[in-house]
């Protein structure tokens, strides 16, 4: 039988040990999070004929439409790398946006379950990350298709994207944890995030190359924007280019700082969450 739930002890107060134990136990029960994520996806596409292909299809449609228009705006007609740039940008963005939007309700949506069965809170965050990662992997089939259509040869540097994806996932987990906890307490956060996310999309180099900007604007929007770095470390290798070293440093910095903040948030909120739901 299961090992967890055999001994339980609770004392009040901010406990980093309890927070770390929650995360460790949550990671250990990753098959549970994976199963929940898989059910979420099946649920989402249950009565649809195309199922998750919809997500891939809408990506292709969006990419084609944007490529045609932006090619002219940016003067990149005929460059086979531009549609690839847009497609990968949108692919990564849909992961980021999915994690951030759904993080708001990652605890709120499962209030009854949280008030009935004691499972690590981090399981709910992993569920969110797994779900978005499955969709991301599914959408990634666009990549080889595009390489063939655009006649772009794949480069070995593309394998470096795996490191980027790892960094992306590590960041998604703390973002999910922090936003989920704070949203459960402050119900103004979900609409605030929904609003600012759209704005962020336009000021983040998803559709346009940051090289087109210059000076201070460029540093703010591209160099120090964590989302820009996140896109950079995944997209650049897949396009056959080495990402900027700065992007890696920015990502590593954010991962460490974010996890530090997430630990503080979890230590403070873990015991109170059930009361806020």
């Amino acid at each position, binding site marked *: 039988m299961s090992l967890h*739930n055999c001994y339980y002890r609770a004392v009040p107060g901010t406990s980093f040990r309890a927070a770390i134990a929650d995360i460790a136990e949550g990671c250990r029960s990753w098959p549970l999070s994976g199963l929940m994520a898989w059910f979420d996806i099946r649920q989402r596409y249950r009565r649809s004929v195309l199922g998750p292909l919809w997500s891939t299809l809408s990506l292709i449609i969006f990419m084609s439409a944007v490529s045609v228009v932006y090619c002219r705006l940016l003067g990149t007609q005929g460059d086979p790398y531009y549609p690839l740039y847009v497609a990968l940008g949108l692919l990564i963005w849909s992961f980021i946006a999915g994690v951030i939007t759904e993080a708001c309700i990652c605890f709120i949506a499962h209030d009854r379950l949280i008030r009935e069965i004691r499972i690590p809170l981090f399981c709910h965050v992993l569920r969110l990350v797994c779900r978005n990662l499955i969709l991301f992997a599914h959408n990634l089939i666009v990549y080889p298709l595009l390489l063939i259509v655009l006649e772009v040869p794949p480069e070995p540097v593309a394998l470096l994207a795996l490191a980027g994806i790892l960094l992306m996932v590590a960041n998604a987990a703390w973002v999910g944890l922090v936003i989920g906890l704070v949203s459960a307490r402050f119900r*103004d*956060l979900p609409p605030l995030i929904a609003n600012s996310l759209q704005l962020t999309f336009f000021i983040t180099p998803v559709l346009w190359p940051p090289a087109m900007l210059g000076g201070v604007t460029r540093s703010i929007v591209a160099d120090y924007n964590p989302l820009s770095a996140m896109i950079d470390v995944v997209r650049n290798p897949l396009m056959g280019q080495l990402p900027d070293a700065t992007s890696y440093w920015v990502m590593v910095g954010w991962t460490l700082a974010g996890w530090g903040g997430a630990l503080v948030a979890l230590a403070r909120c873990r015991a109170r969450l059930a009361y806020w739901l």
Partner: protein
Amino acid sequence: MTSSVDLYNVSVEMPVYYRTGRSIPRTLVTRLGGRITRKQQHADKVVALDDVSLHFRRGDRVALIGSNGAGKTTLLRVMAGIFEPVRGSVEVRGRIAPLIDISAGIEQEATGYENIRLRSAYFGLLPGELAERMADIEDFCELGEFLDMPVKTYSAGMSLRLALAISTFFDPEVLLMDEWITAGDLRFLDRAHRRMERFIEQSSLMVLASHAPDVVRAWCNKAVLVERGRIVAEGGVDDILEMAADRQPFLSGAADDAP
């Protein structure tokens, strides 16, 4: 492993937020505003449990007796590890089987089988362990082909059978049950009743929140009287029921109504 439940001077306060209390601007404003608004910064608190100490051991069949809002369900949730105390500490040994809100976590869009798999994963069962118990679950729910249908197509009775089946298919050690079991829904479901009895017998420690004296007499060997979040008395079932009837006359009325 021996089962035990220990509560040491546990207090629980429920924060109650009204619309303004939960918003970020409000918190910012009160942080800035200083003294006058300080008071409003904190949400109202309902003291749900006040300095509760309880110690249950293996073989205990405990009834939590008290009127609505006395804190029975909160007490169960504290033992289940859902609500953590603001003061005092809790220690529970043994695998906890919560039957507080059994339909919680049932996905309406998912099929019966999917819900069985999900629930077994919540309790950390391995797929092999679930397979061993599957025949028993299928046999008990009597849902047949409906197990392949989404739960939202089930009737109320069918959902209840599924909820009961997936909450009672593993060996409980510390069984925490709320009074829904006495609500009468199950009484006409004879098989459900017998399954519950077996499940209770298997558990090494049970805590049942109820205000139906006949249920308490049938299943419990110990009782605790809870009133406004405090333990008023602890002792034998008959003594406590008598005491409860004196203090809360409606309980004796419930005894008369009981079949």
